[in-house]
């Protein structure tokens, strides 16, 4: 595919060919991602609907399948309202700063062996750095809106994200200890063998902490105090309308899928088949391409987000802080030592 593209562009100068190929690769990642975001919103409404014994959206298109497109068109056509005393520049910069890191992080995500935009050594570190930038969108939006509710939401969100980033970072340190690399592709290959070899087992506490911190990082229920519609209306995006509002939404859902994808890659063997190493089943399913397994695992984590939202009541703010600082961080530190011991002892079947 890539060679074919390069050949058809060979009349261009060398650097331009590389640039075009990279842009095409970016589009191949971002466009399906945007589609996934749109349909995740539909899936959310449908799943929560069925959990609450209703049908959910079912009017636009067959079984409501065109609902996300109708929503997108509606949001595009609406008027973008700029509050009169808001800081215009920062007000519009906020949504951009929320979305840009959420998309940039996808550069180092591998979808199958070698299917990656930028196969860099420090992939995990890059993802941590990019996701930590996302908080600026929220803070700037909250401050520039010149609204008390928005500002309260921004402050809550900032404190929450900074706290949970530490637990998340420690969980990722555990993964890189176990995988022996910061490159996500190499971390997946280190899990080869069978589903017992995947890192969810030796890193079980880190796995749970990673995903729960991921839920908190993306400001999703039950950690959605930054929005907290019953307390502070809608938090940081209360003053946003139309496209500016939907860019925040895009960023939130792109981040959700990113965290789900990372959980699948780091703890559930990424594109590796779950039937690997099981006689009979392995050959029966060997025709399935790796990306299907990866997307299935990612979809499972995305479903967990929706399930959480329909199940748990919102955390109280002091409880969120207690959970992050007094429960998660000590557990991760202790488990890092355990993982270090396992790696040094070459405990099988993971580290031998």
């Amino acid at each position, binding site marked *: 595919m890539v060679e074919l593209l390069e050949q058809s562009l060979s009349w261009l100068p060398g*650097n331009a060919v590389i640039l075009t190929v990279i842009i095409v690769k970016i589009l191949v990642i971002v466009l399906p991602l945007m589609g996934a975001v749109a349909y995740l919103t539909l899936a959310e409404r449908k799943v929560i609907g069925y959990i609450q014994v209703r049908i959910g959206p079912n009017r636009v298109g067959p079984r409501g399948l065109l609902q996300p497109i109708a929503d997108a068109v509606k949001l595009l056509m609406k008027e973008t309202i700029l509050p009169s005393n808001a800081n215009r520049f920062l007000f519009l910069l906020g949504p951009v700063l929320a979305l840009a890191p959420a998309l940039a992080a996808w550069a180092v995500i591998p979808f199958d062996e070698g299917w990656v935009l930028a196969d860099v*050594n420090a992939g995990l570190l890059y993802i941590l*750095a990019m996701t930590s930038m996302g908080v600026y969108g929220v803070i700037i939006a909250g401050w520039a809106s010149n609204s008390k509710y928005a500002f309260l939401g*921004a*402050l809550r969100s*900032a404190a929450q*994200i*900074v706290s949970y980033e530490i637990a998340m970072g420690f969980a990722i340190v555990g993964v890189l200890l176990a995988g022996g690399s910061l490159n996500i592709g190499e971390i997946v290959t280190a899990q080869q063998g069978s589903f017992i070899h995947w890192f969810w087992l030796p890193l079980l506490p880190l796995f749970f902490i990673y995903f729960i911190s991921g839920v908190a990082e993306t400001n999703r229920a039950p950690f959605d105090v930054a929005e907290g519609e019953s307390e502070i209306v809608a938090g940081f995006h209360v003053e946003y309308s139309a496209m500016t509002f939907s860019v925040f939404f895009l960023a939130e859902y792109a981040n959700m899928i990113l965290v789900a994808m990372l959980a699948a890659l780091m703890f559930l063997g990424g594109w590796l088949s779950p039937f690997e190493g099981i006689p009979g089943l392995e050959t029966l399913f060997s025709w399935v391409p790796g990306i299907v397994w990866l997307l299935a695992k990612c979809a499972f984590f995305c479903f967990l987000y929706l399930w959480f939202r329909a199940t748990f009541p919102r955390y109280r703010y002091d409880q969120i802080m207690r959970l992050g600082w007094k429960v998660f961080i000590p557990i991760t530190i202790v488990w890092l030592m355990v993982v270090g011991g396992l790696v040094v002892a070459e405990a099988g079947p993971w580290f031998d």
Partner: protein
Amino acid sequence: MGIDVIIFYFFAAVLVFAAGMVVTVRNPVFAALFLVLAFFTSAAIWMLLEAEFLALTLILVYVGAVMVLFLFVVMMLDINLAVLKEGFARYLPAGIVVALLLIAQLAVIVGPEQFGLDKIASPAMHGTEYSNTKELGRVLYTEYLYPFEIASAILLVAIIAAIALTLRKRRVRDLMPPEKQVAVQRKDRVRLVKMESEKKKA
């Protein structure tokens, strides 16, 4: 001129611009945001020097955490700019003298006499297989193990000291201890009362 030179000059220009804006812009929130931009661009320049670990940690620690807390504080402060700018003209001569002195000292120390290319050769470029993270880890935990450990111990002490200094015990704590909250059972909170249904009066 290679593309990396163009990238370097682009980021260097942005960095100098952002750093200048940090000290000249009036609104403290803008100053903090320009500082974020300065950190980010210097991380990009470090990336050009193949120091990807340092570059990404700079973003992770300074941009992702320190500056967030900084902004947090700056946004909550209600700074009266008029009072701050009072007496600007009066202090200007002293300020200029101090600034010139600082520039002269910097020029003496980091001028081309000490840091020219003939004194310190430009770092060798490595291949794509070179991992700066691994190299840094190897050096930190072998050659510089003791300085590294001592520095971390000092930092730890500083953290504890900072917490101890700002810790204030509240005299009245009407908070419920979390372990009690967690241990609450349904029967402690809900009491179901059985009663006959009442007849409506005709």
